[in-house]
C-alpha cells in the first residue's frame, strides 16, 4: 500500500483529505463553516439553547419570582426526571421508533419501589433495583413484540401505555397513593450536596472535560487525524465552564424563605443526571453498540448486510429506554413524596418526547445525542415552571406545551428537508 501523500498546494483545498487537518482551518473559517452548516439545516441544539435564553428573559420579566434562587433550584430539580426519561427516549428515537409507554413504565417502577419499601421493608438500594428491573422487563416485552412480530412501535407501546396504567391501579388501588418516606430516596431531590463538595464537583467536571478535550486534541494532532481548530475547543470548554460555575453559584446561594433555616447546595439529583449523561454519551459515541444503533437508525438494511443483528439492537434500546424511564419515575416519586395511580400518565411522556425533539433528536431516526435530552429537558421544565408561576389556567398550559412540541417537530422536519437539499444529510 502506498504511504499517504503530502498535502497539495494552495487552491486544491477540496481534495486529498485537506479538510481533515485543523491547521489549515482558522478559527474564523471554522465559524464560517459552522454558520453555513446551521443555515444548511444542521442545527443541532442551537434552537433549544436560543429558546432557553428567550424563555428566561420572558419569564424573568413576567414574574419577579422566576429568577429567584429558590425557583431556579426547583426548576433544576423538576428537570431531573424529564431529562432522564428523555435520555431513555433518545435511544428509541435513534431507531426511528417511539415508546409511548415510557412515562407509565416509570410509574409502575416507582410503585414497585415504593411497595418494596413500605410492604417488604427493603433497603433503598434493593427497592431501586426492583424498580429498575421492572422497567427493564417492560422494555424487554416491548422490544420482543416490536422486533420479532414486527408490530409497529407506536401500537405496541400504546397498548402498554393503557395496560400498565391498569397494573398501577391494581398495585395501589383506585384513588390511592403510597408515601415515599425512605430518607435516601427522598433525599435524591430534597437533600443537597454541601457547598464545598458542590464546588469540588463543579471544578472536577470542568477540569475533567477540559482535560479530555485537550488530551484528545493533542493525540489527534500527533497522529495526523481529523480535528477541529484549537480555538473551537477553547470556546466549547469556556462555554461549559460558564454554565457549570454559573449553576453552582446559583445553587450554593441560600435560597430558604425561612430566615432561621439555611438551604444551600446542589441537589443530589443533578450529579445523578450528570453521571447518566456521561455514561449514555460514552455508550452512544465510543462503543460499537452505540455505533450500531446509529447504523440501524440510518439504514437498517445496510446494517443487516454488515452483519449487525438488527433485532437485538431493537430489543436492547427498548430495554434501555424503559430502564431509564424507571429511574425517572423513581426521581419523580422522590420529588412528589408519593406514588399515585396517575404517576407517569398525563403529560409526562409528552414532556419527555418534546424534550428530546426540542434538544435536537430527530423523530425519523439516525440523529440525536444524550445531551439533546438534557438541554431539551431544561427547556421543557422552564416552560412548565414559568407557566406555573404565572398561575395560568390549565388551558394555557396545554396550549403552550402543545405549541412548543409542534414548533420543535417543525424545526426538525424543516432542518431535515434543508439538509437533504443542501446535501448534508
Amino acid at each position, binding site marked *: 500500500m502506498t504511504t499517504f501523500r503530502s498535502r497539495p498546494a494552495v487552491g486544491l483545498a477540496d481534495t486529498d483529505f485537506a479538510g481533515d487537518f485543523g491547521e489549515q482551518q482558522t478559527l474564523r473559517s471554522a465559524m464560517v463553516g459552522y454558520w453555513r452548516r446551521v443555515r444548511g439545516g444542521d442545527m443541532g441544539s442551537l434552537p433549544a439553547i436560543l429558546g432557553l435564553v428567550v424563555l428566561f428573559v420572558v419569564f424573568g420579566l413576567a414574574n419577579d419570582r422566576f429568577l429567584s434562587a429558590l425557583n431556579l433550584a426547583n426548576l433544576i430539580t423538576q428537570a431531573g426526571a424529564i431529562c432522564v426519561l428523555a435520555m431513555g427516549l433518545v435511544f428509541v428515537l435513534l431507531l426511528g421508533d417511539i415508546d409511548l409507554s415510557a412515562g407509565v413504565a416509570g410509574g409502575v417502577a416507582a410503585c414497585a419501589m415504593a411497595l418494596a419499601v413500605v410492604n417488604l421493608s427493603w433497603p433503598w438500594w434493593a427497592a431501586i433495583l426492583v424498580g429498575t428491573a421492572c422497567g427493564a422487563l417492560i422494555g424487554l416485552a416491548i422490544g420482543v413484540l416490536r422486533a420479532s412480530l414486527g408490530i409497529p412501535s407506536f401500537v405496541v407501546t400504546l397498548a402498554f401505555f393503557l395496560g400498565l396504567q391498569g397494573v398501577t391501579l391494581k398495585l395501589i388501588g383506585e384513588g390511592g397513593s403510597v408515601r415515599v418516606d425512605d430518607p435516601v430516596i427522598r433525599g435524591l431531590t430534597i437533600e443537597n450536596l454541601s457547598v464545598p463538595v458542590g464546588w469540588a464537583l463543579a471544578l472536577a467536571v470542568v477540569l475533567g472535560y477540559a482535560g479530555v478535550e485537550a488530551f484528545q486534541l493533542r493525540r489527534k494532532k500527533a497522529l495526523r487525524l481529523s480535528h477541529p481548530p484549537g480555538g473551537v475547543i477553547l470556546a466549547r470548554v469556556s462555554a461549559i465552564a460558564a454554565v457549570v460555575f454559573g449553576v453552582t453559584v446559583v445553587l450554593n446561594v441560600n435560597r430558604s424563605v425561612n430566615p432561621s433555616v439555611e438551604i444551600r447546595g446542589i441537589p443530589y439529583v443533578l450529579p445523578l443526571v450528570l453521571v447518566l449523561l456521561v455514561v449514555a454519551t460514552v455508550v452512544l459515541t465510543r462503543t460499537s453498540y452505540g455505533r450500531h444503533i446509529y447504523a440501524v437508525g440510518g439504514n437498517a438494511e*445496510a446494517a443487516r448486510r454488515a452483519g449487525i443483528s438488527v433485532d437485538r439492537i431493537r430489543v436492547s434500546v427498548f430495554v434501555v429506554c424503559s430502564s431509564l424511564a424507571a429511574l425517572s419515575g423513581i426521581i419523580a416519586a422522590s420529588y412528589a413524596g408519593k406514588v399515585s395511580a396517575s404517576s407517569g400518565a398525563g403529560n409526562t411522556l409528552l414532556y419527555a418526547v418534546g424534550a428530546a425533539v426540542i434538544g435536537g433528536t430527530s423523530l425519523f431516526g439516525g440523529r440525536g445525542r444524550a445531551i439533546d435530552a438534557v438541554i431539551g429537558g431544561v427547556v421543557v421544565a422552564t416552560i412548565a415552571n414559568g407557566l406555573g408561576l404565572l398561575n395560568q389556567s390549565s388551558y394555557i398550559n396545554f396550549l403552550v406545551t402543545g405549541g412548543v412540541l409542534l414548533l420543535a417537530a417543525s424545526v426538525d422536519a424543516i432542518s431535515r428537508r434543508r439538509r437533504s437539499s443542501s446535501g448534508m444529510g
Partner: protein
Amino acid sequence: MTADAQPILELRGVNKSFGVVHVLHDVDFQVYPGQVTALVGDNGAGKSTLVKTIAGIYHIDSGAFLFEGRPVTVRSPNDVSALGVEVVYQDLALCDNLDIVENMFLGRELKSRGLLDEARMETMARDALASLSVRTVKSVRQTVSSLSGGQRQTVAIAKSVLWNSKVVLLDEPTAALGVAQTRQVIDLVRRLADQGLGVVLISHNMSDVFAVADRICALYLGRVAADVAASEVSHAQVVELITAGRSGDLGLASLTESM
C-alpha cells in the same frame, strides 16, 4: 493477460430455484485473481441471483462452491466475508447518517480497551482510499450523504481494499453515474484487479465491459451461454449472446425454452 491456472472462486454445476421457478441451471462460473470477469445478461437472466448466491444470501440447491480450490459450505453472508469475498450491492448499503470511516468499518469496528479505536480506523480508511488514488474526498469524516454518487461508490468499493479481500463483486456500479464518475469507478475497478483481487463486474453497459473486463461470462435464461476472453469476442457477438443465447458457434447449442 496471463490466466492463472486456478480460479480463486468457482461455482460448479450450481442450480437454484425459487419454488417452481428454476432460476439457475447448471451454472459453471470462475473468478481468477488479478482479472476482471464481466457478468452480463438481460434482465431475468439470473445475474443478481448468481451474485446473491455467491454472497451467501441464497443457498444453492445443488452443485459445488469452491474457494481457492477447496469446497466450502456457505450458510450466510458472514461465512462469505470471512473467506475474503466482498459484495458491493447496487444500492451500496451505506448509512447516510454516518461518515466515511464509520461506514467502511460498519459491523467490523476496531476496538481498543473496549472502546472504539477511532485513530486506527481513521488512519486505515484514509490509507485505503489513498492507495486507490482517490483524490477527490475532502475529509474522511464527512457524512456519506454529502458525497456525490461516484464518491459513494468509491467508498463502498474501498471497503474491499480495507479488509484485504480476495474477491470483489460489483453489482451495476455505474448504473446511476455520469460520464466522469463512471470513468472514476472503472479506473478503480482496474486498479483493484491490478492489486491482485478477483473482480466480478455485473453490468448492462457494453462500453464499460469492454473497457475493463478480461473475461466475459454471458448468462441467458439462467444458463451460461458463453465464458470467453474479452479479446476473443466482439461487441455485437456479446449482444447476440445476451439476447438470443447464441452467436455463430458460440453459445448454447439448443434452446429448450422459447422467449
